[in-house]
């Protein structure tokens, strides 16, 4: 099947692994990611202000294109997913916002598109059984800590991906590729986010708390879907626990590349 795909700015630059492996793995699993034409940056963060309209229009345009193609809209980056899903929720549930946004774009849209994170594509469209069946190189015995961070899960009533305080989707993914999930308390706490740009000390405190907790619980590596989490954990985590993108792990398990090795090298570089 074909789905619409919003890669986002970072997947075209600093996080190419997320983009390239997402596409290649999806093809192996029978899904083609059709990139939205002329997509624009999502803005990285969703403004909760009800009168903030223009900054959400790139999401509205992408959502409208997916609706017109009658396809779900898939994202891999946690930030893009958060912004687009929250915008979609506002288009469906906030009539004033939808009216104003539609006046800009000139094309009526009211939140009809289904927004899926890549993990939801694997769980709900492909199915874990099919993922398991496609695994050629199971990561047997590898102890992996799932790092959800904030953006995949919250706000829970909008993102609706999983139980917001006790999620399992990343652990199910880790099991599907033959590895062993390590559950730790800090897996859905913030890495320090964008505040790292002007307050490194805060980012160091937050990121190191995540990695130290994962390591203490026995994780040999941590998996994330977010380029900013990746940056903070690697730069500010104060620990040499490898951090890998979920698509890189999937690619390794599907026999497409030795992704974890590549990421480790990159971590040390």
């Amino acid at each position, binding site marked *: 099947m074909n789905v619409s795909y919003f890669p*986002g*700015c*970072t997947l075209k*630059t*600093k*996080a190419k692994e997320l983009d390239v492996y997402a596409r290649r793995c999806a093809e192996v699993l029978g899904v083609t990611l059709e990139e939205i034409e002329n997509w624009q*940056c999502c*803005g*990285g*963060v*969703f*403004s*909760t*202000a*009800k*009168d*903030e309209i223009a*900054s959400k229009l790139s999401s509205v345009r992408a959502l409208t294109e997916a609706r017109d193609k009658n396809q779900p809209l898939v994202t891999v*980056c946690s*930030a893009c997913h958060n912004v687009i899903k929250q915008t979609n929720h506002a288009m469906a549930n906030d009539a004033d916002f939808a009216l104003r946004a539609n006046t800009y774009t000139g094309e009526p849209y009211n939140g009809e598109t289904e927004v899926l994170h890549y993990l939801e594509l694997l769980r709900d469209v492909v199915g874990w059984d099919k993922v398991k069946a496609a695994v050629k190189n199971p990561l047997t015995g590898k102890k992996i800590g799932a790092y959800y*961070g*904030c953006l995949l*899960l*919250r*706000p*829970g009533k909008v993102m609706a991906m999983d139980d*917001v*305080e006790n999620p399992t989707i990343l652990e199910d993914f880790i099991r599907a590729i033959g590895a062993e999930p390590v559950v730790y308390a800090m897996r859905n*706490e*913030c890495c*320090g*986010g*964008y*505040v*790292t*740009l*002007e*307050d490194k000390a*805060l980012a160091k*405190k*937050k990121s190191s708390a995540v990695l130290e907790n994962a390591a203490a619980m026995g994780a040999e590596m941590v998996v994330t879907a*977010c*380029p*900013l989490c*990746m*940056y903070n954990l*690697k*730069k500010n985590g104060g620990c040499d626990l490898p951090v890998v993108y979920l698509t890189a792990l999937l690619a390794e398990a599907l026999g497409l590349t030795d992704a974890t090795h590549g990421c480790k090298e990159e971590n040390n570089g």
Partner: protein
Amino acid sequence: MAEHKNYKEQILRISGVNPLKCMRCGKCSGTCPSYDEMEYHPHQFVYMVETGDIEPLMESKSLYKCLTCFACVDRCPRNVEPAKLVEAVRLMVIRQQGQNHMKPDDIPAQVDEDTPQQLLMSALRKYSK
């Protein structure tokens, strides 16, 4: 005083938050990852907006410590959504002429070879208009 009242009305309108729902349990501040860095904590934002004591919030660096992680939004037992108040107060400040907290010229000094574009976009969106 009239001006203060106007601030409160604008903040309530922009945020869509009703601070009267707060039962002062403090869970928002208890779960806030930026608690230690904040002069005014999430529960104080809620109370100070409710009482119209808004200028100290507008002058505080606390506005730029909120990570927008939505922990306080999800963990509030009364669905008050304190982060939306922080966002609204910050917008009241940076939407004023010349009040951007971060300018594009400030960025190059903070960037290293691995800085993801997502980080620059997010910071600019939060800190400037």
